[in-house]
């Protein structure tokens, strides 16, 4: 890299221009042509929160030249903008949104936020609701004693409404039942589909034959109730998925490819082939595995290896996809394409680990495995007994069998699980915990052993300055220098000094010849005197009088002579890590730490938290193997981790949680994501999960008690359509009301947390790894 000022400046301008160009290409690629020179572009605006934001953006953009209209979607956190070609371009719109004080970026492919499944469910719900209301209206007249012809007419009308409605609205159940049957399994949807279809067919036959009883109302309202449960369940998962997607890093879908002539073009990541030369600018993520061809820089590998200390890499060094370039542009030679990079390898590990988890059978399906055959046997028995008892009257016999199927209350059973899960998800959501799906909640309740990752999970993952000593006169110089750099250590220094230096920007304008030396530190001169901020060896080069007894973990700032400012850095625990760990221990969990970081720094954290089972230097494969072993020999494992290197471990744990700051892939793999930076979310989530599991069991119990009363009645032939309708609604109400009790569960995690916060955070000694 060149060190003289002018070329650095042009390089900065050049790299900015390239970055702009890339954003524009991406935005144009995902704009829709509306014809007549009008285009529509969706911008993702993650900070959208309230009415004020909607207004600021919509009003701000509609006054912008070339924009026809702008509409904000708060749920999806997107702004939909229609603009005219030639008058403006998407990049200017993006800048305009940024000018209004919001960060914005392009939609990525496959992430449009549209939800066709939810829409289908809503339509089905609407149709079922319409049919249920109207049929109930007619049925009530029949029950209150309509004359024979009128009753028949009403049944006929009910049938005409019910048949298309059931075929349309029942599809989600029929499909799932068919899928289960074709793989020789039984799930809850099998008895539901069977009851609905048989009731419908029989009632229709009965109506045409002039019979007196029809179960149209039961069949349709059964579907309606179950669709409510299913729709609520779907939207709960959508909301969690959306919230997790929004956390994604602003990652470009393109990389800068340098061709032989030195021309730089933005190319989609998918098109990168091994051997291509790529440019990675400061602040960017390395798109594919490669080796550095030219240039040097510090890289943040924490997401990949779990190590917090940035590493200095130069020509020939190997880079994994996913690590972040902190300073200094480098050209790299791609060693793999997108699908064979380190990230992709991790993805394969995850897929393998998830395979074992998919063997998990959900509570509802476990129940169905016992329940469905029992119901079918009972119905068959009712048919056979009545068939012989009445001397061959197959119609009465079939009727009784259908009454058994309907009244055995697949409704309460169908609602028993989803209602509890939706309420649990809502409660967790309020506390900032995202739940991916209901099965995770069941698995969570079964765990008994917690495995933590260290970096970014138990610790904050960033470096903090713990102490500055020595020449305090250099405070303002340190601040001025550090505020010019993006290096994590510099950020820690400015954060520390923010609260301690007044008039701190004094020296800001006096910095001359400022430069960042990758692997060393920062250098500048003020009023003709050189200053260096960085590791001891680097600073000693200009000030040989400094003694050699500073170890690697300190940063020095010194001029060419005089005493240095000694800056000590540490990795600090999350404020409530100790609290969360204590609580988990009190709840009976056994704990261990598995980390990719060096053994010594893992030992320190483990010691602070009084966790005796810990090990460092683990590769992703090691972690998976260790978790599988724990799962087998001890209790099911709850994995808490954040990095790319934890992703496979997250997938292989019985249940898993990740903080919002985790890598994309970690967040997508984990069952739960906690948004607020508090680890006490872990005991809280576990408490809710246990309470939910208990309520699900109670609901099943209630449904069984109800069946013990209703089934004999149905088998004796006492269940008329009116009784069936009342019984079904009553049982569903009981189950839903019981599920509501989840809101009463006392799992408050805040009381103790606040008490702890008043204490000073636990500070750890710095790890020994040299910069």
């Amino acid at each position, binding site marked *: 890299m060149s060190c003289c000022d002018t070329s650095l400046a042009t390089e900065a301008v050049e790299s900015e221009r390239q970055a702009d160009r890339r954003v524009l290409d991406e935005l144009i690629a995902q704009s829709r042509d509306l014809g007549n020179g009008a285009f529509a572009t969706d911008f993702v605006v993650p900070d959208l929160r309230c009415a004020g934001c909607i207004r600021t953006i919509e009003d701000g953009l509609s006054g912008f030249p070339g924009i026809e209209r702008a509409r904000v979607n708060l749920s999806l956190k997107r702004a939909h903008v229609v603009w005219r070609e030639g008058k403006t371009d998407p990049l200017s719109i993006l800048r305009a949104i940024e000018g209004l004080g919001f960060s914005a970026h392009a939609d990525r492919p496959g992430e449009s936020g549209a939800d066709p499944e939810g829409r289908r469910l809503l339509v089905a719900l609407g149709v079922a609701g319409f049919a249920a209301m109207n049929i109930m209206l007619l049925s009530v007249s029949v029950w209150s004693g309509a004359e024979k012809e009128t009753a028949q007419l009403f049944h006929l*009308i009910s049938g005409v409404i019910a048949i298309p409605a059931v075929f349309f609205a029942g599809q989600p159940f029929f499909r799932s039942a068919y899928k289960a049957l074709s793989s020789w399994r039984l799930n809850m949807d099998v008895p539901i589909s069977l009851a609905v279809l048989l009731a419908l067919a029989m009632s229709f036959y009965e109506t045409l034959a002039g019979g007196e009883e029809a179960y149209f109302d039961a069949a349709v309202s059964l579907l309606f109730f179950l669709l409510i449960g299913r729709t609520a369940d779907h939207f709960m998962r959508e909301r969690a998925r959306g919230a997790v997607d929004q956390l994604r890093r602003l990652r470009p879908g393109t990389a800068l490819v340098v061709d032989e002539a030195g021309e730089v073009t933005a190319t989609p990541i998918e098109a990168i082939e091994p051997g291509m030369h790529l440019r990675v600018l400061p602040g960017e993520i390395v798109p594919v595995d490669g080796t550095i061809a030219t240039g040097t820089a510090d890289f943040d590998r924490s997401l990949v290896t779990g190590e917090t200390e940035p590493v200095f890499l130069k020509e020939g060094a190997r880079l994994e996809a996913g690590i972040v370039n902190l300073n200094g542009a480098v050209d790299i030679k791609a060693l793999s394409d997108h699908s064979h990079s380190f990230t992709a390898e991790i993805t394969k590990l995850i897929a393998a680990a998830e395979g074992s988890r998919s063997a998990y059978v959900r509570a509802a399906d476990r129940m169905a495995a016992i329940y469905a055959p029992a119901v079918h046997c009972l119905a068959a028995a009712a048919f056979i007994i009545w068939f012989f008892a009445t001397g061959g009257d197959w119609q009465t016999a079939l009727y009784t069998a259908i009454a058994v199927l309907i009244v055995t209350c697949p409704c309460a059973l169908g609602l028993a699980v989803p209602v509890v899960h939706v309420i649990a998800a809502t409660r967790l959501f309020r506390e900032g915990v995202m739940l991916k799906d209901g099965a995770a909640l069941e698995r969570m309740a079964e765990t008994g052993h917690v495995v933590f990752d260290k970096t970014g999970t138990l610790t904050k993952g960033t470096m903090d300055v713990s102490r500055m000593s020595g020449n305090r006169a250099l405070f303002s110089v340190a601040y001025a220098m550090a505020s010019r750099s993006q290096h994590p250590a510099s950020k820690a220094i400015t954060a520390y000094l923010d609260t301690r230096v007044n008039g701190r920007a004094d020296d800001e304008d006096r910095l001359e010849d400022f430069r960042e030396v990758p692997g060393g530190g920062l250098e500048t001169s003020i009023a003709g005197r050189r200053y260096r901020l960085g590791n001891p060896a680097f600073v000693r080069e200009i000030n040989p009088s400094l003694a050699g007894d500073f170890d690697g973990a300190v940063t020095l700032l010194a001029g060419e002579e005089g005493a240095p400012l000694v800056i000590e850095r540490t990795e600090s625990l999350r404020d409530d890590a100790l609290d969360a760990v204590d609580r988990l221990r009190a709840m009976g969990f056994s704990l261990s730490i598995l980390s990719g970081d060096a053994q010594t720094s893992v030992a320190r954290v483990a010691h602070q938290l009084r966790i005796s089972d810990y090990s460092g230097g683990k590769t992703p494969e090691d972690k998976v193997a260790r978790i599988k072993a724990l799962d087998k020999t001890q209790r099911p494992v709850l994995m808490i981790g954040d990095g790319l290197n934890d992703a496979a471990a997250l997938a292989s744990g019985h249940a898993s949680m990740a903080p919002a700051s985790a890598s994309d892939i970690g967040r997508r793999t984990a069952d739960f994501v906690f948004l607020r930076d508090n680890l006490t979310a872990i005991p809280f989530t576990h408490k809710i999960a246990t309470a939910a599991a208990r309520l699900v069991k109670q609901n099943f119990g209630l449904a069984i008690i109800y069946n013990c009363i209703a089934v004999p009645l149905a088998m004796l032939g006492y269940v008329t359509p009116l009784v069936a309708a009342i019984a079904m609604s009553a049982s569903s109400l009981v189950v839903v009301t019981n599920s509501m009790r989840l809101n009463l569960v006392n799992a408050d995690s805040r009381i103790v947390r606040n008490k702890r916060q008043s204490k000073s955070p636990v500070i750890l000694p710095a790890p020994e790894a040299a910069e």
Partner: protein
Amino acid sequence: MNGLLFLIPIALFLGFAGLAAFLWCLKNRQYDDLEGAAWRILDDDKAP
């Protein structure tokens, strides 16, 4: 009995009208941003 001849069609028609209105709302993306709609009522209308 005679009353039923027009009461039933009316009831069904109203039901259908409700269903049609719901489907129309859905098609016009009125259910796409429930959260935003809840906030928008707090906004004053723009001055005429």
